[in-house]
């Protein structure tokens, strides 16, 4: 099974500053999908950004962007101009292109605090 590792249990950032959350993964597949999900206290997981492994260009969604390093199996999330509403748990997730193992594999999460 694929493993996803988030080595930063907690991170903090000053409001309006930039923060980067780290994620590495282990896979033998050449094509796959990567996601960052946000989980606020309401518990509902919300998609932040996604990346397809065959695309070399890093995905961006407004203030959120990723640094995808396929050879290093690294997928970090950069949040620019941090806002109070960004405070949440952030989970990195891997999805296989195969029917078997169509599930999402999640890391253990990073708790982000935004300091006013």
């Amino acid at each position, binding site marked *: 099974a694929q493993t996803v590792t988030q080595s930063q249990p907690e991170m903090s950032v000053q409001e309006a500053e930039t923060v980067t959350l780290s994620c590495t993964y282990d896979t033998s597949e050449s094509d796959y999908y990567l*996601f960052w999900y946000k989980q606020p206290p309401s*518990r509902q997981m919300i998609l932040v950004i*996604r990346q*397809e492994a065959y695309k070399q260009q890093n995905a961006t969604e407004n203030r959120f962007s990723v640094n995808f390093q396929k050879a290093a199996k690294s997928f970090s999330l950069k949040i620019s101009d941090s806002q109070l509403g960004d405070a949440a748990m952030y989970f990195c997730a891997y999805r296989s292109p195969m029917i078997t*193992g169509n599930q*999402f594999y999640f*890391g253990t999460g990073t708790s982000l605090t935004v300091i006013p």
Partner: protein
Amino acid sequence: GAGVSQTPSNKVTEKGKYVELRCDPISGHTALYWYRQSLGQGPEFLIYFQGTGAADDSGLPNDRFFAVRPEGSVSTLKIQRTERGDSAVYLCASSLLSRPTGEEAFFGQGTRLTVV
């Protein structure tokens, strides 16, 4: 419905009792997933449905856990002879297609199960 709905939101049960957790996915979504999230951990895969059938139940921890989706929409996760270690948040997610793609999964707000 507009989103994935899970009921109940919270459930407290006594050790040894039987519980059912319900998930109502987004209308038209073929794929449905159940995950379990223990405190301080990422979601852990339990079972995946394609339509009415369980395509992958490799994550169910033992035979006390069972899930059904008889008409290809609503799913019920059933836990027999509950144990204190079953206490967790149970998340349900759905996605439009059954075949693996880069599409996101939409999550419900989960059911927090507490076994006392």
